[in-house]
């Protein structure tokens, strides 16, 4: 088995030093690595998964729930993303697999598939709207909402953790593009 230390390099690590250095109202920052598991299955299985994980998954569409560094994102009517910040994916996956034994469901470790960006500041929604067609007003996209959507040419998972803080989870190969897109957008906002 691979040692976790040699397993992962963040696709965004070259980005932080590049780009513009001027002060903007919106900040971009790289989110810490996390164990990420995609779960698909019926209601009974998701309840068992949530009970083991320590976070009750939302059954309401487009909502996430978080306890400490662990969160569960609703992705579809039978699909959720389990995320544990700064935890070892192998251990989280192992524990979940045992807890889900006998349940009709699937669980896939996607920890290395995507990287996270925090977009923060009073104009964060405006910056995202340069490439995302969703209504990001608080009424239409409240704190606690999450959804897959598009930004420019990239598909990503967008969530709102605070009024002025959005998290973007994007596949590695699109991560530099999304970072540069947001960096340019904030310089225009």
């Amino acid at each position, binding site marked *: 088995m691979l040692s976790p230390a040699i397993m992962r390099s963040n696709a965004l690590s070259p980005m932080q030093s590049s780009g513009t250095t001027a002060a903007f109202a919106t900040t971009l920052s790289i989110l810490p690595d996390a164990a990420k598991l995609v779960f698909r299955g019926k209601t009974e299985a998701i309840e068992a998964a949530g009970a083991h994980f320590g976070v009750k998954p939302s059954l309401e569409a487009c909502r996430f729930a978080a306890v400490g560094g662990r969160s569960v994102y609703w992705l579809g*009517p039978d699909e959720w993303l389990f995320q544990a910040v700064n935890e070892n994916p192998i251990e989280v996956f192992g524990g979940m697999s045992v807890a889900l034994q006998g349940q009709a469901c699937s669980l896939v470790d996607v920890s290395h598939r995507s990287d996270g960006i925090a977009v923060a500041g009073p104009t964060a929604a405006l910056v995202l709207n340069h490439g995302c*067609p*969703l209504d990001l007003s608080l009424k239409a996209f409240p704190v606690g909402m999450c959804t897959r959507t598009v930004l420019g040419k990239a598909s990503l998972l967008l969530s709102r953790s605070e009024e002025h803080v959005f998290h973007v989870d994007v596949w590695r190969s699109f991560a530099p593009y999304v970072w540069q897109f947001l960096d340019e957008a904030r310089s225009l906002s």
Partner: protein
Amino acid sequence: MLLINCPYCGPRPEAEFVNGGQAHIARPADPMSLTDDEWAAYLYMRDNTKGLHHERWRHANGCGRFFNASRDTTTDIIKRTYRMGERPEAEHQGAKP
């Protein structure tokens, strides 16, 4: 931008969806008993409706689910969206469900 009402996520921008072609086409139960012409008709022949058309859409950059939509091909207005396995509304069934 055109808004499409996903049965799971609610109204969302068109850019998040992909069209999946005509809806309510049942796969023949026993393909081996079909002639080549019948099989070709199942695979390739589709209505070219002017007016209300029932079609599949997928919320590809959203919940990922397929659903059905009844869309007027002359106005591009989507009258109704409904989940897979459901039938089009009776009032709409005149237009070849």
